[in-house]
């Protein structure tokens, strides 16, 4: 069985989600190269910006019922350092590496993409949906028009595989249609949900960030299903996948591939177990996938 997201061929439909496996420098501590090649269809890097970003002050995390609020604030070493210090080892794994990019303006995104064109990098996921930064991020997702301009601009200079990662809130359908019109290759649905939690009372500490994990799966499953019925672009699902069953359900509603995020935090080997469960489910119920989406 081969898996396709539009023109992109993957060995499995499982993709490691941005920001949930660090910068990749320690992944081989937990997974062998064979395991990676056999179980993982693609790797998506941590969100990368032009300049290094220190990220947000603590508290950055709060566990909620079956979920996680994070407010990392896109801590990353910047695209240049990443390309030099972290990317080579990932490239050697021989699994497609997709660059998750964060810009605060169309211009910054274009600059980021130029770096990638130079390095002959073939996959990009535009992060227009991070809820944890004051500039850029989710602000884009409020305006289908701005998103259209952004994606069109990137498309003009980038010939590789172009994914846009949407926010689950705001005018999602309109943004999705704008991406289609601007000739994106696929959509990731979705990033985390804007959330808030009280970390402690005395001293009073609150966190505003993005909610991920199994709590949100019913919401993102619905969103994926709704968008698929209205937008003819391949959809990569991202939200609350912990088991092969979760992946199978996203495939059932029509997703082309599925990202594994928070699960990697719970257990760095989750993707291996998910892959095993998925294989079994495909054997038993795979024919359901050919029957059209419920």
């Amino acid at each position, binding site marked *: 069985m081969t898996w396709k997201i539009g023109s992109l061929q993957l060995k499995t439909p499982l993709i490691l989600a941005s920001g*949930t496996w660090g910068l990749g420098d*320690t992944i081989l501590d*937990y997974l062998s190269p064979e395991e990676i090649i056999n179980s993982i269809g693609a790797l998506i890097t941590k969100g990368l910006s032009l300049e290094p970003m220190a*990220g947000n*002050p*603590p508290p950055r995390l709060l*566990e909620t019922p079956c*979920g996680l609020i*994070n407010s990392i604030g896109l801590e990353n070493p910047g695209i240049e350092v990443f390309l030099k210090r972290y990317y080579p080892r990932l490239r050697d794994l021989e699994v497609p590496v997709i660059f998750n990019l964060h810009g605060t303006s169309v211009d910054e995104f274009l600059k980021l993409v130029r770096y990638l064109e130079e390095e002959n990098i073939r996959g990009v996921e535009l992060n227009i949906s991070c809820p944890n930064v004051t500039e850029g991020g989710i602000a884009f997702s409020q305006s289908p028009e701005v998103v259209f301009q952004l994606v069109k601009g990137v498309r003009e200079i980038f010939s590789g595989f172009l994914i846009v990662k949407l926010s689950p809130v705001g005018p999602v359908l309109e943004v999705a249609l704008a991406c289609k019109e601007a000739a994106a290759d696929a959509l990731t649905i979705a990033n985390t949900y804007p959330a808030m939690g009280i970390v402690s009372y005395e001293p009073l500490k609150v966190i505003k960030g993005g909610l991920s994990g199994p709590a949100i799966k019913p919401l993102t499953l619905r969103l994926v299903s709704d968008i698929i019925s209205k937008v003819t672009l391949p959809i990569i699902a991202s939200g609350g996948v912990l088991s092969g069953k979760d992946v199978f359900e996203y495939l059932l509603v029509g997703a082309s591939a599925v990202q594994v995020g928070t699960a990697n935090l719970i*257990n760095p080997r989750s993707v291996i177990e998910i892959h095993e469960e998925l294989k079994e489910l495909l054997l038993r119920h795979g024919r359901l996938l050919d029957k059209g989406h419920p």
Partner: protein
Amino acid sequence: MKSTRILENRALAERIYLLTLQIDEDLMNKLSPGHFVKIKLPDQRLDPLFPRPYTIHSLIGGHLQVLYQIVGKGTRALSQLTAGTDLEILVPLGRPFPRDLGYPLALVAGGVGVAGFGFLLESLPQEKRKETILYYGASSKESLVRLDYWETFGVTLKLATEDGSAGYKGFVTDLLQSDLSERKFKSILACGPMPMLKRIKEIAANSTIKTYLSMESFMACGTGFCKGCVVPRKGGGYFHICEDGPTFLADDIIL
């Protein structure tokens, strides 16, 4: 994650437990004092969602021991497990205690923060143990656990309780402070609640003692994957407690 089996899970005090896990030699050889372990509850229930981190308390007898206190649903659920239960653990995590600890050494523990000092003392040669003072504070006598065990090392044990039911009445940091004038410690290694760590940093600030603090925070991954467990770094940016720590030079971090 690795599979392991519970050999014993024993209450030492009302809310403090000693968990003993079976491990193989291979794994044992990878462990150093200061490392921590993430323990997954052995069921399919998704709340709590994340395995909890615990310092390695002891390796005596070739078993991995964890000393833990019930504070919420994860630790409560752990306390209800019985011998024979199979568990998944992720270990070793974090960096060991620094290898350049100087002697005389002050170990300062608040509550179950004492846990990691077991494995440390087990690894020290006799002469270094003798040059070590363990300051151990808790709310009351009942929460000072394993005193017999601590005494086997031949360290000097100084106890403090908030209610005065054992040892000095007050904070363990008061004990430390009043000793600082007489004793010439080369290093301090402290583990306990944040107010204690802050106080130790203050106390040590005026001295030349190399002071290390073992930090805690909620951890989603424990592996450096999420970048969520940060402590501000002197000079800008952040350390990640799980991958750069959990033990830091007090001077390097901002509390």
